């Protein structure tokens, strides 16, 4: 059994693309080996990557395909042999198949007797196959952004390929990728190992050979080293912790080959800047981890993950250099903050006319005016409800919400828009409600994010997003398939989440109607929100798809109500009685459909025409119908559903004894009228016929 190693040496691959490419390469190599019958039982394929390389090590590979036999079919027996003597056709076939005439066999088929020959196929060597097939697999890797570098552009890849190592055990597989002939050498860390080739003795020694050249090729190992050394560096400050940031750990893992960590400091005076700004500078701009004290407050330190191992002198230089850059960044932020204060938010409205919201629609000034109109309409509905809010503060917040787009700090840190506006509003002495609403306007930014903490913030967030959605739909920018360049789905998800998790007395149609949606466009927007609500119930809240369908079939407008109904339905759907009732509902629906197809009409039920069991059902339905309505009004859906489940014996009796589609037209019509009424009485919470029963 052999081992196969492939390493593609590259100029630094973008960190964000490495993990997926490593996995894809592993999959392609595995599939190739399987397809070509080169994988033995128990073979294992490991993948590795650093910014400068992608590698696959397959252990348990066959050096050669097994030989096989194959039966080749020839002409019919009668044509190949006359009187047991081979004919010219028979001899020609034997020659073509490469066997003696005496080796030809008679093969029975459904069409008669034919001549066949067993042909031995000699397996190809792994090396031959890899030379022919592997380069295509490598060059077929998906990259979010490609380049070409060789004259005449023979291939595209993420970055230039600079070396290739391809080996079976200790021999080179002489394949060629992007003009580079494979060898048995790699390269180590740029600085710590330098340019000299790193010889790999055997495929299996790959990981250790690279480790000796200051490259940890295993991503999981690097990740762990980084986490441990972050911990160790943080321990030098009493009581401190580094701020967990999984995404940043991933990024620095893919930016390093030999990671180490330094802890640096910054002047305490910068802690006066808002934490949001400090963390953004450290994380997004410098890829540093923030450090917090025992109370969770930012401490004047940072952690940088390096791609080198320096001696003490080097470490001091590197620490100093990084601290210097951070200081300059903080000083910039401070400078921008101070400059921005010279023009308060209230004085920035006019300059919004110069900031484009959307080319075909208008500027952010226009956007603010539109948002105000929407907020006004929403406020009219919410006014006087149980969600008290400060109307003046809301309108002020809507008016100023986008003014931070003209500030230097937001130009520098675009990811902090809204947050900066809120901080400035506070610093400029605006009402705290105004400041908080502006601060929270983009929350929730994801399905996991929290909704704005105040009613004003919730209304601002809804108004801003529905305005955007409706305006974008109006100019043909609705999302299609996987394309949603304006993140309108995310905006709608946020609206649904706010409606679900706030106490706002707003339905989706209230929200949609508050916008300037056209009559013609309304259906599309309604359908879009219905899908978003479905997404929220199913993917965010985790309700079963049949529960979601059952709930939405009866009503998809009131988000909180839909959630409550889904919860109640989920709670009862397991009970046997309920399953029986939902099966009955399905049956009723089917009968009504058949009746309609046959032109049978339901009439209001009359006592005289109903069987005893039907009268029982009618009585029970009339008895509990109002109770269910009452419970539903109180949103006591679980109790209402429990009550519906008590119908089971009555319903069972009815279907046992009564033939609904009675030959007598009067009886039939009365029966139909009855089940129609029963179905309507009990379908206000969910369409039970959607429930999938085991």
């Amino acid at each position: 059994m052999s081992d196969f190693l492939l390493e593609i040496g590259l100029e630094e691959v973008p960190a964000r693309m490495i993990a997926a490419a490593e996995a894809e390469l592993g999959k392609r190599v595995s599939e190739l080996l399987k397809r070509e019958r080169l994988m033995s039982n128990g073979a294992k394929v490991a993948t590795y990557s650093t910014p400068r390389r992608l590698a696959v090590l397959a252990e348990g590979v066959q050096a050669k395909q097994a030989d096989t036999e194959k039966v080749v079919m020839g002409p019919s027996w009668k044509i190949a042999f006359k009187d047991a003597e081979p004919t010219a056709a028979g001899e020609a076939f034997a020659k073509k198949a490469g066997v003696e005439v005496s080796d030809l066999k008679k093969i029975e088929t459904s069409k008669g007797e034919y001549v066949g020959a067993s042909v031995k196929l000699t397996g190809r060597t792994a090396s031959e196959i890899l030379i022919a097939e592997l380069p295509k697999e490598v060059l077929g890797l998906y990259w979010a952004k490609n380049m070409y570098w060789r004259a005449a552009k023979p291939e595209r890849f993420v970055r230039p390929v600079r070396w290739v190592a391809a080996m079976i055990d200790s021999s080179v597989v002489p394949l060629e990728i992007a003009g580079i002939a494979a060898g048995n050498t790699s390269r180590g860390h740029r600085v710590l190992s330098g340019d000299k080739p790193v010889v790999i003795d055997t495929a299996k020694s790959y990981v250790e050979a690279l480790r000796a050249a200051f490259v940890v090729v295993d991503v999981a190992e690097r990740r762990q080293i980084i986490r441990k050394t972050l911990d160790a560096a943080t321990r030098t400050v009493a009581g401190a912790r580094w701020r967990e940031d999984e995404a940043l750990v991933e990024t620095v893992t893919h930016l390093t080959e030999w990671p180490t960590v330094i802890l640096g400091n910054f002047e305490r005076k910068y802690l006066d800047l808002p934490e949001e700004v400090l963390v953004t500078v450290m994380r997004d701009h410098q890829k540093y981890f923030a450090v917090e004290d025992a109370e969770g407050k930012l401490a004047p330190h940072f952690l940088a993950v390096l791609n080198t191992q320096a001696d003490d002198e080097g470490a001091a230089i590197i620490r100093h250099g990084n601290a210097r850059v951070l200081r300059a960044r903080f000083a910039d932020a401070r400078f921008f903050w101070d400059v921005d204060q010279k023009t308060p938010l209230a004085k920035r409205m006019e300059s919004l006319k110069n900031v484009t919201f959307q080319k075909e629609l208008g500027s952010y000034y226009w956007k603010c005016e539109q948002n105000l109109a929407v907020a006004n309409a929403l406020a009219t509905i919410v006014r006087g409800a149980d969600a008290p809010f400060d109307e003046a503060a809301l309108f002020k917040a809507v008016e100023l919400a986008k003014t931070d787009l003209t500030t230097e700090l937001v130009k520098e840190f675009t990811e902090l828009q809204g947050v900066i506006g809120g901080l400035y509003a506070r610093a400029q002495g605006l009402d705290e409600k105004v400041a908080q609403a502006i601060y929270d306007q983009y929350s929730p930014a994801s399905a996991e994010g929290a909704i704005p903490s105040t009613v004003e913030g919730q209304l601002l967030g809804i108004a801003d997003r529905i305005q955007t959605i409706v305006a974008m739909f109006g100019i043909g920018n609705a999302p299609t398939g996987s394309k949603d360049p304006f993140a309108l789905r995310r905006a709608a998800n946020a609206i649904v989440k706010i409606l679900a998790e706030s106490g706002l007395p707003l339905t989706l149609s209230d929200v949609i109607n508050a916008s300037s949606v056209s009559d013609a466009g309304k259906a599309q927007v309604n359908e879009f929100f219905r899908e978003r609500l479905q997404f929220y119930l199913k993917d965010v809240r985790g309700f079963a798809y049949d529960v979601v369908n059952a709930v939405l079939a009866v009503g998809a407008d009131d988000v909180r109500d839909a959630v409550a109904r889904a919860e109640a339905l989920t709670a009862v759907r397991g009970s046997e009685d309920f399953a029986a009732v939902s099966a009955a509902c399905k049956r009723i629906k089917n009968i009504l459909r058949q009746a309609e197809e046959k032109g049978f009409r339901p009439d209001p039920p009359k006592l005289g025409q109903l069987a005893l069991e039907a009268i029982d059902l009618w009585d029970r339905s009339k008895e509990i119908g109002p109770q269910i309505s009452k419970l539903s009004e109180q949103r006591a859906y679980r109790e209402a559903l429990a009550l519906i489940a008590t119908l089971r014996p009555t319903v069972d009796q009815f279907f046992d004894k009564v033939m609904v589609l009675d030959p007598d037209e009067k009886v039939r019509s009365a029966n139909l009228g009855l089940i129609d009424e029963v179905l309507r009485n009990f379908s206000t919470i969910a369409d039970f016929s959607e429930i999938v029963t085991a």
Partner: protein
Amino acid sequence: MSVAQPEARLKTSSLTFQDLLFRLQAFWAERGCVLQQPYDVEVGAGTMCPETFLRVLGPKPYKVGYAQPSRRPADGRYGENPNRLFKHTQFQLILKPPPVNVQELYLESLEAMGIDLKHHDLKFEEDNWEWPAGGAWGVGWQVMLDGLEITQFTYFQQCGGMDLDPICAELTYGMERIAAFLQDVDSIYDIVWARDKETGATVTYGDVRLADELQFSVYNFEMADVARLWEHFNSYEAEAQALLEKANAVLTDENASPKEKKRFPMLATYELALKCSNLFNLLDARGAISVTERVGVIGRIRALVVGVAKAWAMQQETSS
């Protein structure tokens, strides 16, 4: 919790701003590059100089380096911000086609400026570049040294809307950043630009450039005459357009001789387009370009710049 102490000053480079430039230029000159002087028309980036923008077109290999003052009117800060400049110095290097060891050569060039890589942390982080008005883009990295971006490294893919073949590598060194880093000063204005060997007296970046920063900020933000800037813009544009039309006529004329084609002033046409680009930047800094105008004006500049690039490529083909 310990109190953060200011970092101790470390041994700093004794190389002046101009020493660094000399070293960098000498390094690349030794490797066969043409050393050009800065281009004498206002540009926003070294890429826009004809030594880059036009030379990268077509098949002819070329290696060139130059230290280009790059003007970005909106970035001016009246000389008050220690890290931001209206006009900064880009050492621009074009290697067409890029040698296979271009990254290693780049690292050597850092060593040539006295940067001992054993004592620093170096990363190549993805950063792609584009200049939409020039129909130009490429992929590459920002090179980070101890957390500081010191170079933009780009493999050009397209220019003037045309695929390049061969491609080139463009290295753009931010000289002020590198100097401030090596000299360990917190303000660009404290960079030692030159030092008198005999007296030890120094001339700082502030001595040389502070007045530029202050006065051009005043001009760019406050005093540039918007109406006249538009007039200049329209005038340069009109002349460039007229020349482009003639160029296209001559270059596609089968009866025109190679000599006639060769002498057509594409370079002069390109300068007129560059003038427009700079005037746009001035108008922008002045806040004189409205939302609705913006896209349109960029489109006009693009028409000139890309038009010249295409005509230039044609001229190279037809006149040789």
